[in-house]
Structures are given as C-alpha cells and as structure tokens.
C-alpha cells in the first residue's frame, strides 16, 4: 500500500469533516428555529466524530495523536477545501453549503466502503449511515425553502451561485491522485464529481432553483495543498485557544 497516497487522502477527508463540524457548531443559539440549532449541532457532533475516526486511522499509520493533529497545526498544514472554512454567514449559505458538501461526502464514503485499504473501508461503511441523515436533512430544507417565497428562493439561488465554485474545490486533485486510484484506495475525484452532479441536480430540479452550468465555473482550488482563505487561521486559533494555554495539561 502506498502510504503517502493513503495519508494524503485521509488528511483531506479528516480535515474537511473537522472544519465543517466546527463551523456547524457555531449555529448554537443562532438558528432560525430551535429545531435547526439542534439539527446543526447533531451534524456537527457527527462530523467531529468522523474526523476523529479518520485521525485515528492516521495515528495507526504513524501520525501524531488526534488531539495533537487537530489542535496544534496551523492553516498551511491543513488539507481541507476552502468551502468548509468559510464563515457560517446567514442560514441560506450554511444550508446550501451543507447540501452541496453532504451530497459529496455521502457518495464519497459510499465509494470508500469499497476501498482496498480495509480499515478505511470499515470506517466508511459506518460513517455513511450517518451521512445519509445529513443528506436527508439538507434535501428536506432545500426542497421546502426552494419552493416557497420569492425571498427564500432568491436567497437560496444567490447562495448556490456563490457557493458552487467553492464546492467544486471539494474535488481538487492532488499529486497522489493517480496512485490513490491505481491502488484501489478510492475511485478518484472525477468519478465522484460526476456522481455528485447527478445527485444534486435530482434534488434541485424539484425546486424553483436554477442549477448553473458547472462547465463555465472556475473551481476554487488550493485547500488540498495548504492554500487557504483568510478565515481558516482565526478558526484554528479559536479552536486551540484553551488547548494551547497549557500543552502539558489533561483537560
């Protein structure tokens, strides 16, 4: 097994889940209805748990412990896509991000269930059961709000147009892409993107929202190689604020 390729993939998966989980948790106290505070918190807890499972796989491959990896790296050492770093904004943005992201993640972990790296395949088969509910949640709200008032439709459309280039950054390939596919670790980003596009179209077509032509959009790349938005480092500083007070402490 090509360890460098495997670790590269695992870091991307884990960092995405950690950072979006952290962002989702910021909805505490701010949701448009209480039920959404609770739902975003549930998804945040799941995503944090997913990232932990993936960091544990990395730990088994010789990387540092999950707490060290998550709480002590700086932005250039993170491999998450820029989509997950963006601030929560208003509910329409967070909903659209959640919709675009979780459709991709469900398909990604379904595919990873067949990975040639058995420990990852096992984790993926467990995670996809939870991601299914994240997708159901996103679909419910996109369908409901996407066919309601003009105001809601306009907001969702604007967020969709804004967010899609970032969402395409989910499928940014790294120099390990060929090895990852050749080793049977993962089907690869192009194959995943094709499935994803079909999957989100199927939902959006049931709403008043228009799907932009993805061909003419410029994907926002860079996250996979440590190029991040201005928002990631402050997020990491906040996340590690207490942890760094006393690195020798058991909290």
């Amino acid at each position, binding site marked *: 097994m090509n360890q460098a390729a495997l670790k590269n993939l695992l870091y991307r998966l884990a960092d995405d889940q950690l950072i979006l989980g*952290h962002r989702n*948790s*910021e909805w*505490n*106290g*701010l*949701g*448009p*209805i*209480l*039920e*959404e*505070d*609770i739902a975003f*918190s*549930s998804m*945040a*807890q799941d995503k*944090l*748990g997913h990232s*932990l499972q993936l960091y544990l796989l990395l730990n088994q491959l010789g990387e540092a412990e*999950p*707490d060290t990896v*998550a*709480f002590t790296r700086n932005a250039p050492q993170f491999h998450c896509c820029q989509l997950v770093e963006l601030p929560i904004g*208003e*509910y329409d943005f967070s909903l659209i991000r959640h919709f675009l992201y979780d459709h991709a993640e469900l398909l990604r972990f379904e595919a990873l269930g067949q990975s040639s790296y058995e420990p990852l395949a096992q984790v993926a088969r467990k995670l996809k059961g939870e991601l299914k509910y994240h997708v*159901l*949640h996103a*679909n*419910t709200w996109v*369908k*409901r*709000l996407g*066919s*309601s*008032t003009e*105001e*809601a439709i306009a*907001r969702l459309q604007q967020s969709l147009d804004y967010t899609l280039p970032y969402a395409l950054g989910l499928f940014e390939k790294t120099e390990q892409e060929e090895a990852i596919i050749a080793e049977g670790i993962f089907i690869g980003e192009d194959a995943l993107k094709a499935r994803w596009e079909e999957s989100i179209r199927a939902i959006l077509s049931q709403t008043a929202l228009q799907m932009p032509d993805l061909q003419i959009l410029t994907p926002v790349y860079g996250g996979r190689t440590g190029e991040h938005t201005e928002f990631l480092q402050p*997020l990491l500083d*906040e*996340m590690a*604020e*207490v*942890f760094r*007070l*006393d690195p*020798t*402490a*058991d*909290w």
Partner: protein
Amino acid sequence: MYGGGNTFEAPVKADGLENEDPILLAEFEARIARGEKIEPSDWMPALYRKQLIRMIEQHAHSEIIGSLPEGTWITRAPGFRRKMAQMAKVQDEVGHAQLLYSAAETLGKTREQMLSDLINGKSKYSNVFNYPTPTWADSNVISWLIDAGAIVNQLANAKGSYGPYCRALDRICAEEAFHLKYGHDAVTHMATGTPTQRRMMQEALNRWWPAIMTFFGPADKMSTHTEILMRWKVKMATNDDCRQQFLDMYVPKIWELGLTLPDPNLHKNEETGQWEFTEPDWEDFKRVINGDGPCNKERLAVRRAAEENGAWVRRALLSPQAKYVKPLA
C-alpha cells in the same frame, strides 16, 4: 440545566378568584390535594394558568439564553473529548427549551409570543446568565454547579400539579444527570490538574459564587407571598429550602477538590443543621434582573439577531406556496 432557580413572581393577588366558579375551584383544589395531575383540557383558574405560563416560559428562556455562555466555549473546548461533550451538552439545553415551549404552549401562549416577550424584555430568564464566562473554567462551573442548582429545583417542580410540565421535567432531569457528571468531571480535571488549570478553576469559582448564591432567588423572608402557589403545587419548594439543599450537597464536594469558596462566613451550623453564609447582595441582584447586569444587553442582542436573521425562514415555512416535505421521505 438551566432553568428553574428563581422564578420572578409578580405579586400574587388571590383576589380575582372570586370570579371563578366556586364549585369548579373546589373540585380543582381537591384534585391537586389528591395528587392528580391537571391536563391542558381540564378546567383551571385563570391565575393558575397565568402563573404556570410565566414559570414555564421563564424556564424555557433560561435554557436558550443559558446555552449562550457555554456555547461560546464549544468552539474553544480543549481536545476532541471535551469538544464533543460540550456540544452535546449545550444541544441538550436547547432541546429542553423546545420541550418547555411546547409545554407552555398547551396553556395557550405560542412560542412566537414567548420569544417576542423575551426579546422585548417583558419576560425574564435566570439571572445568572447575565454574568460573563471569560474562561473555559467558568463554563465548567456552569456545567457543574448551575446545572446542579437547576436539578435541585427541577426535581422538586417535577412533582408539581401540571401534567405537561412535570413530564417535560422528568425527561429534562434524566439528561441533567449526565450534565452533572460531565461538569463534575471537567471541574475535577481542572482542580486536580496543572497549576495553570487549578488557578483558572479557583478564579472562576470565586467569580461565580456570588451569582450561585442568588440562583434560587431572594430569601423567603423577603419573597412575595406564595402560599396559594404552594397549595396549587405550582411552586414546590421555597427558595431557602432549595438553597440549603444545594449547599448541603455541593459545598462538601467543592471542598473535597481542594477548592475554596470566597465567603469566610460559609459554614454549617451543626446545631440547626442549616448553612450560614454572608447574605448575598440582593440590591445588586435586583439591579441585574432589571437589565443593568454585565451581559444582559449582549445576551438579548444575540437572541434578537437570531430572530431577525431567521425571520425569512419562518416566513417561508408559513408561506402557502411552500410544499410540505416529509422529513425522512
């Protein structure tokens, strides 16, 4: 948590009761005396309804406002274990608000009206959340000791007379038991940890102790007359009883961890079996309740912003064009 604690009572006037049907009133009181629960469709005096709405509503508000100071520390919690637990704990509190608003709605006031009264300052919430939580240790103090205080109050109220409120409290108390373990575990790690951690915890406890001592509300000798509310099993324990019970249960546990409390007069009088302490500053308490605390404006501003920013979502949900989507279709 977080609710319970003191319910801010308007002076209860038993007059107005003469407008109630004396036969129905006698039957109502007899049912309560027999330990029966009153259900939403049952007859009840207007005063009973009003007091319960006030109490459950304040409790619900305390849950959502109370989720803010601890919520701030979700994004800062040190390490995976704490981060996940803090999220789950705060999420429970928001869930409690949801349960409680539903219980209050059975009495005829909508969630929207209640939230609107909260934002407009017509309706109160537990006063302790008007104080700041500047460190992780402050959040731990809330998780352990404010939750502990709330449990004392809520276990008493769970034996009250209004069915929907009691059932909500039963569920809430079951979750609170976990919060208490979580809070105690977090405080124990701090109090027995590195010098930095021990200093943080002691400072947080010193900051919070005066507020904790006011958590159950003013001393009985200064409280509004609540005899009728006790008879109707709306209020189940006096402020002093709750405070004494709390001190009995938790002061020894605090001392056991090597922490001190910033009140030189705090001790148990072995003859009376009662805790004695420096009388809390009730003038300051009143001032803070009435809006002049360190965080009143901030807390309500967050709530107001959430309501305003989310208004378009609620409008969309109520829109006749909106197609109902089965959540798990």
